[in-house]
């Protein structure tokens, strides 16, 4: 199954991402994002735990991607492998992830594109015959 495809958007990057389940969808979104940023596959010598909560899975997906973008630029952590657990607690959706990656300075190394953030605009997570799909717009 293809992980993502690029759709047209006048100013920014718009992609449709697929996953066989929600966890897999979240991981595919992160891989797609870093495909745009860095072409080389990262080493996985550092592990980082991430905990996030939101009112719904759409918000949680944006929080997750922006968490990875900001830790890349602020703390130079380039992620490459994702172990994700999603759960419900009351009216909250929760993400627990262990991300393996490496120390990568985006200012010393050449990166392909500057992505400012994942946006909420038009974001919808849909159930498909093969699992889940989401359309996301990244501000560039």
């Amino acid at each position, binding site marked *: 199954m293809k992980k993502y495809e690029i759709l047209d958007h006048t100013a920014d990057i718009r992609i449709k991402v697929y996953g066989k389940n929600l966890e897999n969808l979240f991981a595919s979104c992160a891989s797609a994002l870093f495909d745009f940023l860095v072409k080389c596959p990262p080493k996985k010598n550092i592990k980082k735990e991430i905990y996030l909560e939101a009112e719904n899975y759409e918000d949680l997906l944006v929080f997750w991607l922006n968490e990875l973008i900001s830790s890349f630029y602020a703390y130079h952590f380039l992620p490459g492998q994702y172990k994700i657990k999603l759960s419900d607690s009351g009216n909250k959706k929760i993400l627990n992830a262990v991300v393996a990656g490496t120390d990568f300075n985006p*200012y010393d190394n050449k990166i392909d*594109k500057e992505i400012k*953030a994942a946006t909420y605009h*038009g974001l919808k997570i849909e159930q498909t015959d093969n699992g889940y799909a989401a359309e996301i717009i990244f501000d560039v």
Partner: protein
Amino acid sequence: MYEGPLEKINDSTYRIPKSYKPGMRVDGIIYASEKLLPDIKKDKAPEQVANVAFLPGIVNYSLAMPDIHWGYGFCIGGVAATDPENGGVISPGGVGYDINCGIRLIKTNLTLDDTKNKLEKIVNALYQNVPSGVGSTGEIKVSVTEEKRILLNGARWAVQQGMGTQADLESCEENGAIEGADPDSVSPRALERGKQQAGTLGSGNHFLEIQVIEEIFDEITAATFGLFKNQICAMIHSGSRGLGFQVCDDHLRAMAGCLSKYGIDVPDRQLACAPVNSPEAASYIGAMRAAANYAWANRQVLTHLTRESFEKVFSRSWQNLGMDLIYDVAHNIAKFEEYVINGKKKTLCVHRKGATRAFGPGNQALPRKYQTTGQPVIIPGDMGRASYLLVGTEKAEQETFASACHGAGRISSRSQALRELDYGTLMQELKSKGIEVRSAGKKTLVEEAPSVYKNVNDVVDVIDAAGIARKICRMRPLGVIKG
């Protein structure tokens, strides 16, 4: 594709009636022309104008300028004012990630003839001196304490470091530092990202251009600004870099919960917002202003580097080269400004998402030298055709919350540009027009090719015809530095 209603009011204004979608509080108004309409309807930008009309407390209209195109949340070219006394909200989506992305125009006393054999040298010097490109870092290394001073003092900080003069500050919107910035509302992450990028141009549509004035439309005003035909100018387009992106993200995240907390119904979560008088809004406003000040400091540093580059090439001081700042405008920002609404003076929260403030003559916020002319409104086009200088009008204050367009506006996507254009042909095309280009990224350059933009002449003509700003002069690019 937009298939909803768009009613012609006159040759430069079109209406989306509030009956289009239940929940719209006001009509949408788009400034456009018959010529521009097909491109405007091609994407979802008009739908976004309708979505913004849902914002609580919105006053008069949800507006869009003729450079309108599809953004996220607000369209690019969107303007909306809300009334804090009437439940009005502030939305980080109405400002965008690049807080105080803006533009400045610097004049010189050089003419086209003076630069004829030196253009390549100037462009090379600028490319060497001015950090640009994806994830570029600056020469300016600051501690967190120093960075917080930047967030409070904006361009004033750079001037205190010897990178400019008092006259520069007077030629900036808000004198280069907006009051009410709160560095404590800026997260450690945003500070970390800001520390690494002070004094950098960035990538995407950010640029530094050397231009020549090719046509004057209003000789008297141009002369007041010290501008004449064949004069060389420099234009700088940059913003608040990673610091601004992080501030927007942090506060959008905080405001996602405000929709349910304050019972706000908007059709797009990117329009997450909070009542202006709420603690969440106060925190965002303080942080947004801090990020705006960072951007003003950034453009002041870039100005200093530009002046240094010219000094090197011409072996004259920048003062001797007459490199004075004409003006610096913010085009991604929310500001509190006074307007008369139904005969009553009101302080409104004006969101400009890809729109330029355009105060008319006599506005007290303008420096004395622009009291009779109105505020300089700087409109970059694309790197192959032209850019403009206009001035704001009283009509803009009555009709558009003193706002005009901010550029040409894109018509085709980045991926389409990469599919249809190639770097070599583009470079050759620009070279044949006498334009020297230096770019850190080949892809970025292709994505920003002139053909992906509307013709800025058409966009500016709508603004001029609508009377919300007046054309003063048009500049043609000679040298381009892209990220």
